[in-house]
């Protein structure tokens, strides 16, 4: 999985800046995507490209349970969020609907990857290659549980015999 990084060098990016409350009435995902990150970065929609990654600090996605947050990012083209840590509801929402991959990284990757860098991420080997600097980093492996839901392609495809 290859893509370029949009880096937000801060902690606690919350769901209200990812998709402000006024847009929770919007049901059209393409329209929702035009407001992604609007609370923090009004230029996001014009700069994001299909396949991009977001890189940020601790506690990404804190706050509301709105699934609109990973949906808005995913429909903007974002394939994965790389962060030092995640708030749990955002993390599960990202995986449950197979919207995007929430990837936990270490301080080395956080410090070593800059805005605009091109990465190649392989979740089967947990390797993040920075193609711009030729450095490699390890992502924190998904827990077995989360890995199984990702592998299945979301909550409703996991254990279909029980669903």
């Amino acid at each position, binding site marked *: 999985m290859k893509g370029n990084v949009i880096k937000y*060098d*801060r*902690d*606690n990016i*919350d769901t*209200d*800046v990812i998709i*402000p*409350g*006024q847009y*929770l*009435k*919007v*049901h059209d995902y393409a329209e929702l995507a035009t407001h992604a990150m609007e*609370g*923090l970065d009004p230029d996001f929609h014009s700069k994001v490209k299909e396949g991009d990654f977001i890189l940020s*600090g*601790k*506690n990404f996605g*804190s*706050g*509301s*349970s*709105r*699934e609109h947050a990973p949906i808005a990012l995913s429909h903007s083209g974002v394939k994965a969020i790389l962060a030092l*840590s995640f*708030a*749990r*509801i955002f993390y*599960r*929402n990202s995986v*449950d*609907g197979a919207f995007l991959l929430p990837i936990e990284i270490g301080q080395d990757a956080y410090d070593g990857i800059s805005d605009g860098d091109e990465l190649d991420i392989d979740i089967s080997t947990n390797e993040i290659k920075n193609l711009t600097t030729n450095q490699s980093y390890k992502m924190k492996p998904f*827990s*077995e*549980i*989360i890995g*199984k*839901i990702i592998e299945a392609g*979301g*909550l*409703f495809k*996991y*254990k279909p015999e*029980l*669903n």
Partner: protein
Amino acid sequence: MGKTLFEKIWESHIVVEKQNEPALIYIDRHLVHEVTSPQAFDGLRMNDRKVRRPDLTIATMDHNVPTSDRSLPILDQTSAIQIKTLEKNCEDFGIKLFDINSPNQGIVHVIGPQLGITLPGSTIVCGDSHTSTHGAFGALALGIGTSEVEHVLASQTLWLEKPKTFEVRVEGKRKNPHAVTAKDIILSIIKNIGTAGGTGTVIEYRGEGITDLSMEQRMTICNMSIEGGARAGLIAPDQKTFDYLRNREYTPKNYESLVDYWKENLKTDPDATFDKTFVLDINEIAPQVSWGTNPGMTCDVDESIPSPDEFSNGDANQKKGAEKALEYMALDSGTLIEDIKIDRVFIGSCTNARLEDLIEASKVIQGQKVAPNVNAMVVPGSQMVKKQAEEMGLDKIFIDANFEWREAGCSMCLGMNPDILSPGERCASTSNRNFEGRQGNGGRTHLVSPVMAAAAAINGHFVDVRKLNLN
């Protein structure tokens, strides 16, 4: 070895659990509102599924309902559609709905307990992060996303990773419990553990500082567990809990035998251990006011705003966060909290819009007027709270002081209905989140207790409410 309260509730709800796999957990109550449910119902229709237990599913509309005159049509068309959609979904799937004209309408986390729907030892979910509120009754209450809402509608179960356990022990007694409130206790806890301090855990609040609290105050504590990053907050039920839920509209008929069972089973064993512990001594804590853009950025009312260096303790991102927060909030380090002037006051939300909150706030304002240039509003948490307050004459006290007295809903807590801040406006708010833009684009939020919000409305700035006569 003994078990914690959380472990007991978890184990009694396991449908399937295998090592290194998620556990399938049975859900006793599912609360539904208009914002996080439409796609879930669409999903059911697409897959030709029914709601498995409509009798355990309860819906209301709270997030985007107008709080002004309800005899008028809803002007915001997208809100009107979302509200109509919930009506249709409830009708199609046979779900009990407290609609906009119901005397039981209100914020979902206010109506659950007051109707006796929230019960000790049960599992409760809702597509809303503040579902943690119901933990005040000893229920395992989790906020979930829309995919999970659909999964619960279809199966009455959820695949969950087992959370870790976090003991927050609150010791001591507050010197002035009218001025130093449950809100100040939970803000003090979050200030100390941080906004991610509880990530992946269920917090159990224990100790004299918790058992001393009323049920409504305990709800304020558990409500903000999510602001400390936790999956849920829990308080072991006791006589106050059992008395609160007796004789409510939906209290089960075999209530007394349930109480006997709860007394026996719903407590953490003396020899149980927690994955981690934090202790807060509340003998000396002060009223709290948030100054930044997350609930951890909070200080005592008699302090001044910290510098980013003081706040961050050497953490580069924390420092940057504090700098950005001060810029957004248009505040300088070193400014005394009591010198911060406000434009708006919002007394409302699932955190602090219950009857006791309104009683306490009314004591501060009785016989006084809201400061010139301040616009203040009270949005009761439910129509039942509103009615009870009106029976006590609280509405007159607020209206005489020039507060607006509104209909029930989430309102200015999250800026989905017309109750929003204008860019640059500064609000003393009894809600739970001070995120950038939360109460309206460019709006500036200070999280406080109802007593502090009322005092700020009268004075036009924050004041040390310990100096007021509140008894």
